[in-house]
Structures are given as structure tokens and as C-alpha cells.
């Protein structure tokens, strides 16, 4: 049970900077997900915490203890690797007991903990098997079990679901969330899958090029992204961006995207006022672009004409790949929509949920 603090942590590999001045305060019992595209430094951040990489500068604290120069085994953490890293020559039981044996835990205590963890994870009948006799999902459970029996202060997960098939991934996702509920311990979880991040995390840290972009709850990350990168990274399909100009006309603010323009609703105009007359980036999520016939009631909408380039029927919704002028974007509309490839249609943009970003800094205007 412990909090974890990254205090101005920088990690360099030779000339390249993997992590740049990372500051995160993770509270006790929190489920923090580190997310970002590959090469963003999320795994490195985790490995630094585990002690598998030495940090170049800064401090890492577990609880109030500075562990920057503490050996991995003395940090009171357990890690689940993407490849599971089970010891191939040992049985499942020995895999789980290995850490406890090295720590000279009494035999009866080892036996109790291993059996209990195996029971919880539903792998009690597999204890005598070797890892190669297990399926991917079972191996994953053993890897989690090996972490649980250690009863560490912090659990680290490095993309533990990447090697599972889609169905198993959804199932295991829920199980890890349940595990977190039950163990009441700090979980730090690295993934590149934003769905995993959104569904499991109590807070998400988005990294890009070794720099922390935003650290917030999943809902806030989705509703109020701090910059263009976070806005584009969270949500699938990704948010649409339009280069635009914020104009003042008739006492109202109008976002002019060249081929179309939308009027800013009164309640959102406040923060935008100082930016009138400047170039901005307009961000609209695909789910905020509707077929006008089926748009939800009570929203401020702007009608835009577009040509349908492609449609993808998902059953519960239809993805439309649209063009207005020379700009391509995506909409996620009601399946009853009559939009067909090659037709010119009208779409309704929900301006209540639009985001404006400064063109230069790419930061959200709030």
C-alpha cells in the first residue's frame, strides 16, 4: 500500500531522451494507466519505477521512500510483463513460489499464498503444469498470480493483454479491474490501447515523446483534452481537426473553416473571446457529427454539406468517410441514415461538444 511519485524524472539513452522531466503523483490504491503511442516512453517510465532502468536525473518515491538507487528486489513491487516471462523449466506452482522462496518465506506460508492466489485466478488445477502446456490466457493468469503472491505495495503491468485474442482481452480487462477492487493496492498499467486505458483507469497519464501531455480522469481526458495530441489520441475513430479562423460577426463568434463555418454557442463563447481574429484548430469528434434526420434533440448544431466517400456499417452505427472541399473527415451516425457512397448529403455538427485549439501552441482554448 503506497503512493508513487515521479519527481522530475529524466531518462536518457545516450543522446536520445526517453523521458523528459516527468512529474506524476500517484495516490495510494489508485489505478493509473500510462498510455501513448509506441516509443513515447511509457514502458521506460514503468521500468524506471521497477528499477530495471537507472534514471538519469530526478527521484522516484514509493511511499515516502526514495527508491531511485534501490535494487529492484528491494522496491516492494511486482511486475507483469507483456511476454509474461514465466520460467519455462518450472511448474506453475514453482513459478509462483519462486519469489517467496528467494525471500525465505516459510514453506507453509508459501503454500497458503500460492494456493489462495491460484484459487482466486481459477488456475488451481494447473499448478503442476509447465508454462508451455498452458494456453495464452492461462499463462497470463499465472503471471498475475506470481505478482499477487508477493503481496507487493505496487503492481506494475507492462501491456499484459497485448498477446491475448480480442475476446479474452475484454474478459481479462474486467478481471484485472476486479482484482484492483479486491486487493486495494496501487496499480500502474502501461498500454497503447486507449480502450484499456479508458475502461480500467482511475486516472490516465498520456505521454508523447517522453513528455507528459495530460494526467486526468478518463472522462475529463475525453471531454476536455488539453491539446491536439491528446484529443486525437483518445477516442476511436480519432477526432476530426479542421484548420479554421475565429471571426467576430453580428456580435457572435464564428469559426470559419473555409468550406463551412459554425457559430459558437453563447455559453461557450467566453473563453474564446480573446482569440477572435486568430487562426485556430477546430476539433469535432466523429460521434458529434450526425445525420440531421437522426440528430439528438436539444443540441446546437451546424449544418455542413459533404460528399460521402465511403461507408462502413458496424450494425449499431455507420462510419461515414466524408469530404468537404478537400478536407477528409469521419462521422459516426445512426444506422438508419440513408447516406450512400458518392452522394452529397448534409451533416449536423454538434457545436456544443466542439473543441478549439490554438493554431500555434496546439493547446486547448478554455
Amino acid at each position: 500500500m503506497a503512493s508513487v511519485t515521479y519527481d522530475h524524472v529524466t531518462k536518457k539513452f545516450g543522446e536520445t531522451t526517453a523521458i523528459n522531466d516527468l512529474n506524476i503523483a500517484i495516490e495510494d490504491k489508485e489505478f493509473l494507466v500510462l498510455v501513448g503511442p509506441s516509443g513515447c516512453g511509457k514502458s521506460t517510465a514503468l521500468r524506471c519505477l521497477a528499477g530495471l532502468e537507472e534514471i538519469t536525473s530526478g527521484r522516484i518515491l514509493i511511499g515516502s521512500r526514495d527508491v531511485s538507487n534501490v535494487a529492484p528486489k528491494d522496491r516492494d513491487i511486482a511486475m507483469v510483463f507483456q511476454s509474461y516471462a514465466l520460467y519455462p523449466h518450472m511448474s506453475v506452482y514453482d513459478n509462483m513460489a519462486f519469489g517467496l522462496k528467494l525471500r525465505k518465506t516459510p514453506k507453509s506460508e508459501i503454500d497458503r499464498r500460492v494456493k489462495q492466489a491460484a484459487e482466486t485466478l481459477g488456475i488451481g488445477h494447473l499448478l503442476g503444469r509447465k508454462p508451455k502446456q498452458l494456453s495464452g490466457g492461462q499463462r497470463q493468469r499465472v503471471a498475475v498470480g506470481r505478482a499477487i503472491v508477493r503481496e507487493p505495495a505496487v503492481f506494475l503491468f507492462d501491456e499484459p493483454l497485448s498477446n491475448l485474442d480480442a475476446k479474452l482481452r475484454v474478459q481479462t480487462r474486467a478481471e484485472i479491474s476486479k482484482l484492483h477492487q479486491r486487493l486495494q493496492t496501487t496499480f500502474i498499467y502501461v498500454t497503447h490501447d486507449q480502450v484499456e486505458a479508458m475502461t480500467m483507469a482511475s486516472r490516465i497519464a498520456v505521454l508523447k515523446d517522453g513528455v507528459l501531455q495530460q494526467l486526468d480522469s478518463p472522462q475529463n481526458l475525453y471531454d476536455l483534452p488539453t491539446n491536439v495530441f491528446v484529443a486525437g489520441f483518445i477516442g476511436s475513430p480519432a477526432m476530426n481537426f479542421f484548420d479554421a479562423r475565429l471571426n467576430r460577426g453580428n456580435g457572435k463568434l464564428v469559426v470559419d473553416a473555409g468550406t463551412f463555418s459554425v457559430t459558437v454557442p453563447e455559453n461557450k463563447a467566453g473563453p474564446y473571446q480573446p482569440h477572435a481574429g486568430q487562426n485556430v484548430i477546430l476539433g469535432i469528434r466523429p460521434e458529434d457529427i450526425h445525420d440531421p434526420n437522426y440528430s439528438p434533440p436539444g443540441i446546437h448544431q451546424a449544418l455542413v454539406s459533404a460528399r460521402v466517400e465511403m461507408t462502413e456499417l458496424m450494425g449499431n452505427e455507420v462510419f461515414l468517410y466524408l469530404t468537404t472541399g478537400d478536407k477528409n473527415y469521419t462521422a459516426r451516425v445512426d444506422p438508419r441514415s440513408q447516406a450512400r457512397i458518392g452522394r452529397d448529403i448534409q451533416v449536423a455538427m454538434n457545436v456544443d461538444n466542439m473543441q478549439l485549439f490554438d493554431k500555434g501552441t496546439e493547446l486547448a482554448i478554455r
Partner: protein
Amino acid sequence: MNTDRLRRRLGGLPIHILLLGLCALWLLPTLGLLVTSLRPFQVVTESGWWTALRPPPGAQVYATQCAECHGSNGAQLPEADLSDPALVGPYRRSIMLLGMLRDEIDGQPHMGGKPLPTPQEAADVVDYLRGLSGIETHSAFTFDNYIDALTGYRGTTNYRTDCAAGTQSVDLSCTLADLGNPRGMGRAFLNSLMVAVPSTILPILFAAFAAYAFAWMSFRGRIVLFALLVGLQVVPLQMTLIPISRLYADLGLTGTFLAVWLFHTGFGMPYAIYLLRNFLGGLPRELFESAYLDGASHWTAFYRLAIPLAVPAIASLAIFQFLWIWNDLLVALVFLGGQNPVLTYQISNMVTSLGSGWHLLTAAAFISMLLPMIIFLSLQRYFVRGLLAGSVKG
């Protein structure tokens, strides 16, 4: 479907024939060596091993020329009983037999109307009669060659005959202690084991430590040091013979087992380190990281993780190293010489000093082949896996 199966069978035929050919290519000479080593020394130089099961040539001659009067068992004429050793004994050479055959018996030619045998035929008959009369036992197969080789017998007949007659050389006691005779293959076998076993274990043990360090410990100069070690593989062993013999002479190590152990360890390690490092380096990094997080020190990770996982590589390395040392003559000759002769040294001695001792050579060769064959056949799977070690993962 049936034609499919037939076609598949026939398609595999050339490969099977080729394999059979290769097997024959290896098996036939080996079989020849084995059969020869089990034949009495008298016949080894006279006929090929494939005739081992044929009746001796003298039997044919005897049957046509002599059996009519003397009978097939030689005892038909009481006044000339050929099964009596006292009668046959004096006739040692073909010329003596021919002379006797030329003499008339009661005014009649000995052979009646039959032509005299040729000298070769006569020699064959003498040989056959010595067997028939029980002066010499002429079984087709015997272990005498092995006994002679193991005891280091160097006489003109064989160990058993000499010991029975009490005419053995001074270095033989005709007891089991003869197996320890310094000139024998028995002693040489033990010496070879004394050389090969530590010379296999030591370099692999040290190489395993080094390979782990090179693979999973980070220290300054790791890559340079590894490159240097790998580069050492090109140093020819012969280049170091003189400096090292001088060093050993100064240290008083010449002729001791320790000298060869050290030499083989030194020359075995570069390749062993190279192979084991590549094998250990090919294991997933997470495995070791996981162990470190589980509380393992480098030492624990080495013997609980690296060694068990490297068993295939270590086994194949051990096989190669063992076979090479077992078959090595040069190093054993230079550093052990005649003080503690090994198998290869004894075999080479047999060829040079006993040009006619081929029957001993075959037995000696088989004694020295025994262990490599057992090792190879029982550890085949590691052998093949070892050939691929480093190049293919897992």
C-alpha cells in the same frame, strides 16, 4: 487416394536410398573393423574379414586330397592318426609336409595318383591339421586381440598363450593387475578419461560464468572484452606449444594431468563462451528481469535460471569438447607424452613400432571408439540441437 500414397512412398525413395547408402558407408568399414578385431591374429593378415565365416582354406584341400584315406576326422588310419598331436606336432612348415608327401610309403607314392599340393595348399593343410589335432584352437572369433591390447602385450603370439606357457614378458604378471600395465590400452583408457573429463568440465564451467556476465551484466568494456575473446578463437593451438611447454617446464608441470587440463581449458573457453553467450543472450530479457524483481541476485539467476535453461547448449558443447579431447593426440603427446600415455598415443605407438600388429590396432581402435559412440548415441538429440545453438532460437 491409394495412388497418392504410392506416389508419396516412391517420392521418398531416392532419399531413403541415399540414407541407406550413407549408413552403409559408415557401417561397413566399422563392421569390418569390429570383425577383424575379433578374429585370431593368425588369420587377420591372411584373409579379409568378410571370409571370417567361411571354412578355413585348408579344409577344402584336405577334403579333396587327404580325406579319402585319412577320413574326415583324420583318425581313419590308425598307423597315421592325424588327430594325434604327437604325430602332427613336428610338421610346422609347408616344406616339411611336402617333403613327407614326396616320400613313398611301402613303395607306393604317398598321394597315389593325385598331384602334390602347391606350397600354398600345403601351408593351408598344415594349418588345418594343427587345428584338427588340437595343437592350436582355431575358433573363428576370439577376444584375444582385446586382451592383448588392454594388457599391452607385445610378444609374437598372444597374452593367453604366453601366460599359459609361462613365457610372458617381465612387465606382465598374468593377473588382473596387467590391466594397469602402463603400456596397455586399459591404463590408457583411464588416462584418457582423466584427461578428458576435467578438460570438459572446467572450460564449460568457467565459460558459463563468463557467458552469463557477458549476456546479462553490464560493466565497462563488456563488448570489447567479448570481441577480444571471440577473436582468440583464431589463435592456432600449435603456435603456443613451445612457449607453454617452456612455461610448464619452469613450473614443473610437464607430464602432469594438470598441464593438459589447463591447456584444454584455455583453448576450449573462447568458443564455449561464444556459444553460451549467444545462447543465454537469446533468452528473453524479461525472464531475467522478472527474476531480479522476484528477488534473485545475479548468482541466483545464474544457477536457478540460466543454467537450467542452457542445458541443451551446455550438453552439446560438452559433447563436442569431450570428443575433441578424447581424439586429441597433439596436446597429449606434447604435454603428457609417455609419462601418462592416453589412447591416441598408444594407438599411434602400435602403428609405428609394430608394423605387423594390425590385429591389435583394430581392437585398440574399437576400445577408443567405445566411449565416443556411447556418448554420441545416447545424446544425439543434444548433438543436433547444439549444431543449431545460437543460430536458431529455442
